[in-house]
């Protein structure tokens, strides 16, 4: 496995007078969470292989403010937003790609009225575009015939009507895409959104991620595919709770593609 990845920063490119094609917004989970870091690296490997000119903000990146806003702390959200916008605008960023639907939604929808307008795409949309432009090729061999179910992240699906890009990519892997009973517009949340990731759930009779994992397991999948680091955590925990981790993997779309290509 190739472990060398090339991750240029905006600061280094800027000092060379270069402007990348796209800024990769890594996000807090992608930067710090051990599981999500693997997704980040898988995505970078694909970008490297496709020779995409990209850069990250690195230490200049900060939380978009999504969990603060959804918790009700509008002030903290807007402080985060305007500081990030100052950095993004200073680097004259035009296009942003991110593997986190929460960052995606906030950057795309909530930054413009605060002075930050960019073309923002989710990494599944970006990968699909690379594929259509022939910049990456996908070998399906490894996943041929495998049953893969896709869990729609709320902030990608319902929030922004992106349902097909991740599914198109799964189909390209020659995998058998199986849908859960609640999918697409009626997809059930993993339980992490609205800042729930960072707190204990209220009293109830079940955890939301268990409910969702049960729906996923009903499809008898080999792999539960996700497009969000938080969904990934919730579904992984759910699969562990059901003691299915030996037979069912939870993987991000970027990991599927990188692994199909032995990256």
């Amino acid at each position, binding site marked *: 496995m190739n472990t060398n990845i090339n991750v240029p920063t905006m600061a280094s490119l800027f000092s060379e007078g270069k402007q990348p094609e796209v800024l990769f917004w890594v996000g807090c989970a992608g930067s710090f969470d051990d599981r999500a870091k693997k997704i980040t690296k898988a995505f970078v490997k694909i970008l490297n292989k496709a020779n995409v000119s990209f850069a990250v903000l690195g230490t200049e990146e900060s939380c978009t403010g999504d969990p603060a806003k959804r918790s009700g702390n509008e002030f*903290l959200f807007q402080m985060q937003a305007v500081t990030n916008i100052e950095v993004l605008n200073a680097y004259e960023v035009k296009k942003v790609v991110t593997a986190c639907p929460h960052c995606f939604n906030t950057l795309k929808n909530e930054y413009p009225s605060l002075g930050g307008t960019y073309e923002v795409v989710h990494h599944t949309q970006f990968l699909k575009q690379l594929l259509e432009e022939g910049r990456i090729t996908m070998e399906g061999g490894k996943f041929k015939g495998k049953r893969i179910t896709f869990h729609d992240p709320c*902030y990608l699906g319902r929030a922004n009507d992106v349902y097909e890009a991740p599914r198109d990519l799964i189909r390209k892997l020659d995998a058998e895409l199986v849908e859960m009973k609640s999918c697409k517009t009626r997809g059930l949340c993993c339980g992490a959104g609205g800042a729930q990731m960072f707190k204990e759930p*209220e009293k109830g009779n079940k955890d939301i991620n268990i409910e969702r994992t049960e729906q996923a397991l009903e499809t008898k999948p080999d792999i539960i595919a996700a497009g969000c680091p938080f969904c990934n955590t919730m579904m992984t925990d759910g699969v562990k709770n059901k003691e299915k981790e030996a037979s069912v993997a939870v993987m991000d779309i970027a990991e599927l593609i990188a692994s199909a290509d032995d990256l």
Partner: protein
Amino acid sequence: MQYIPQIIFTLILIAGVGYFASNVKKLFRNIKLGKAIDVSDNKPQRWMNMAKIALGQTKMVVRPIAGFLHIIVYVGFIIINIEVLEIVIDGIFGTHRIGLSVLNESVYGFLIGSFEILAVLVLIAVFAFWIRRNIIKIKRFLSSEMTGWPKNDGNIILYFEVVLMCLFLFMNATDTSFQNLDSGNVVSQFIAPFFDGMSENSLHMMERTAWWLHIVGILVFLNYLYFSKHLHILLAFPNTYYGKLRPKGQFLNNEAVTKEVKLMMDPSADPFAAPAEDAPVPEKFGASDVTDLNWVQLLNAYTCTECGRCTSECPANLTGKKLSPRKIMMDTRDRLVEVGKNIDANKGTFVPDGKQLLGDYITNEELWACTSCNACVEACPVSIDPLSIIMDMRQYLVMEQSAAPSDLNNMMGNIENNGAPWPFNQQDRLNWANES
């Protein structure tokens, strides 16, 4: 003497419509208690949404059984009301079946025949609805917020519709001149034989009674709307027009906060500036009562017909948490009605009653259970947005009361201090690139 029925009819009509109009005025006043919000954008899209979602019922059929039954009642209701036009004209001018003197007999027969068939279909659909509400244990009709008045309200509406449809058919069946036409009596011809052998006079009396009860029933039903969840038959139209056009994930940025933040970031702002003496008291952040919400959110509350599709899709509710988006809407409406009554009782001004939406109706526990997943917004067949109310109330809890759960306070502290929801140093943000 011969004008007496006409005079009585006109008076009843004026009273019925007049009382309804005065209540509609109150409804408008209550909705306008909400804050201003600019919804003047993108009119073509708004008309399109109204045509598709309210008129075209596109969201209803997502659930095919209830959707199909609803379309029958909805179409039946609208079309049969054409008949009311004839009744009103007949009532005011003392004519009988004015339609016959305006329209060709076969056209008239076709119209009334269609109404009769629809009336039967409505009866069947209403029966199915009643079974769904009272016999089959459909979970969304059994939630804790659906006991008492909301449950009775749902049934009363169904009984109203049964009575009105039966009166319409009965009225046609006992109308000998109409039966003799033998055109349009598709259904009533099978009811008419039950009255064979009755004198012309008693048949006429029965026909008149049914006719009067029918129109009075319609006026009573019209006035019942204001006190009922059934207002959706009118408000679904403006509500879908004013519904959210932005991507569902886009929450509005609070402009008052933007001003504060801009001021903080402005190096030329005077850090010691004191507000002018006559400066208004700053508005509170977020919402603790209905008057802190915007008027579209209040319109949402009046439009809700308590179908519970939102609640049945809510991940928090599905897993046994207290949150129910339907209850959020019902609470908002009930509190708004209470505020409205307070204003009525106090000559047009609201006298503080020591109550508010937060705490007295909606608890913190409900608000903190939301995952902001938009399932409720997606599920609503009339474009109601319960999520926006939850978010506004969370904003009040955090920004005015610092009442966030402690875990969330830690998370926010981390963002403030090190730019991530976890306690990691911002300088370590790129470490992943060098880890194997």
